[in-house]
């Protein structure tokens, strides 16, 4: 059981992620863009953050950078949702301080397995 923050501007992906993680016994908060995600992260602590890259306003890469600047999130696992078509995003994400990534599209099982790698 962990508290997870999921940030994605697509409502259907958010729903799917929330459902999958909740079924697996995690507590999930979600946000529709980087600003909301940042605000949520400042309101409560999370054991891990999963964020999409392409979002209006603060994108995923910038969100990682800003989270890392918060004292409580210096070591928190942050996973980026990237696509095969933009491999350079992985590197940008790493440079910003991301822990790892999950390539879209992903199966719910894959999401859980990847998340398990950064929990505990």
């Amino acid at each position, binding site marked *: 059981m962990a508290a997870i923050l999921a940030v994605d501007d*697509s409502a259907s992906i958010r729903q799917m992620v929330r459902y999958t993680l909740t079924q697996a016994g995690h507590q999930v908060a979600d946000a529709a863009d980087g600003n909301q995600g940042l605000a949520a992260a400042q309101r409560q602590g999370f054991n891990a953050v999963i964020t999409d890259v392409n979002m209006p306003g603060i994108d995923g890469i910038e969100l990682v950078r800003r989270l890392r600047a918060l004292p409580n999130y*210096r070591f928190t696992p942050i996973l980026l949702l990237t696509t095969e*078509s933009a491999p350079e995003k992985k590197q940008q994400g790493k*440079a910003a301080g991301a822990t*790892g990534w999950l390539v879209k599209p992903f*199966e719910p099982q*894959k999401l859980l397995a990847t998340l398990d790698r*950064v929990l505990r």
Partner: protein
Amino acid sequence: MDMQPFLDTFFEESFEGLDIMEQALLALEPGVAPDRETLDAVFRAAHSIKGGSGTFGLPAVAGYTHDVETLLDRLREGETTLGEEVRGALLESVDVTRGLLAALRDGVEPDAAAVAASTARLQALLGASSGATDAPGTAMPAAAADAESADGPGWRVRFAPQPHLFTTGNDPARLIRDLEALGPVAAECDSSALPPWSELDPEACHLQWTLTVHGGSEAAIRDILEWVEDDAEIAIEPLPGAAEEPPAGPAVEPAPAGTAGEPATERAAPPARGGSSVRVQTEKIDALIDLVGELVITQSMLLDTARGCDEVTARRLRDGLAQLERNTRELQEGVMRIRMVPIQFAYARLPRLVHDTAGQLGKDIHLDLAGEQTEVDKTVSERLTDPLVHLLRNAVDHGIEPPEARRAAGKPEQGTIRVAAEHRGGNVVIEIVDDGKGLDRERILARARAQGLPGAEREDLDDAAVFDFIFEPGFSTHEEVTEVSGRGVGMDVVRRNIRELGGSLQVASTPGEGSRFIISLPLTLTIVDGQLLRVGEEIYVVPLPAVLESLQVNPEQLRDVAGQGRVCAWRDGYVPVVGLDRLFGLERRPDEHGRTLMMVLESEDARVGVLVDELLEQQQVVVKSLEANYAPVPGSMGATILGDGRVALILDVAGLLALSRERPAIPLAAG
């Protein structure tokens, strides 16, 4: 896992995204460098559709939108410029994606030809060089831990993290644990780099490991360590005696020269209007509205009951009921407001329509939209789209002149069509104004007479009456049927659609200066302020806004005019009279002097008198659809349930007029 619950959301948001794409593409000027923000929004919409369709098992969509996304990405990176050709292809892709999604949603066969044609067009723009685009990202990356492929005894892994490793959120302990999924791991820790206690930075990683992994493949190990390969020194070698593994390609593609140097824009997202929002299915709201409707009925039932109580009880009961009425009304308004959406949803197709139609006809037209935040009921908004589309098509086709004709008339070559919405009282009023040639009174009249439209033969028709003929079935003044207007849908259908929503459509025009179509609609379709009235034993409801006046009439004021039905002298003219008794087969009971009450009702610019026996109270009534619950009843817009449980028809003035089939015999004085 069952993806169906998320598919509904996916379709909904994808259609919204496509609308955003379309509007943004139309807003971009070909040849002008597009602004980054707009392009980003378009790219994100396409990107979300592609990503979601992959996730939710719609490979056809994911495959098709891959090229769309690639083209948009090139635009975004400035590798492609936005010409009319690119914009056309992208607009087309919006349509194709819409069709594809709708087909998948409705379980029908998608239009494969359209997809293929659009794909070819996109790939031509992407250039032959990129013909070998990487496969659409529907393939699943191989699972990292394929423990079953243990080649030989295993691997020795030298793992030397850099001090900053923890700040990436990674942890050597977790990585070692992941490696254990491949087989037993023996870890040898090298603490030689540990500084003395006094200098130890507890947040830095000073330890290094030599790991012996008894199982797995080199690729599987690289997969697990991929996240930290830039934050650690990693060396992997097979244990002595291990089978030679065919050399695996590099597990990581070299980082392409991307946009890494790009400064991240520090721009706050625009605040969402009205704070946070929740998506709610319309069914849920409708159930709530039904419930509130029941509450209103219950409340009026209680009020009826209270009237029969003794003084003291009644007073207490009435106080409570007055409170309940206030609360109910507020609750009702609140619930109604949930269903309100900005009218911009009905505007969505208009820019594209004007752009395309004007292009076909070689006209230069600027579309000006105003009042897009004006809120209307969702159903009204949805059913408004078709009439708006038709009126705009009409303005482009019939209203605005070709550039040369405009120049000859001393007007700017670019015509303007303005669509503006605003609230006026309990209505929303939408005006469609063009600065074209205006309606041709003489041609309309000639055409109406040629078609033998009733009333056209008269010599004293004012402009409004003449212009009204364009709403008659089958009426068209266009010399040659153009591809645009010859679609078999006439203005009569437009007016009928608007009337079905309880609204009205009027037109005004000045020759040479343009035309103005005015749509007026009620804000909601489910609650009406009603005037109750009795005819014989039956109770009817008339929407209060339609009531012009009530007066006593003597029998001699009523006259039967040959071929015109009954009329009644009223003010300075006559008004056609509808007898509900005749219409619905009722027994009327005028008073002993034979006098009767007449209510003059008004719809748009037509008036009709209705003979009634008694006026009862005014109250809010909940409109229930007769069509859904019984069958359509001519002359009524629905029914309601009264406090005593009786059902009353709600009269529809326009419908009554149509039923009486009577044009006013004599032009009415403006009242």
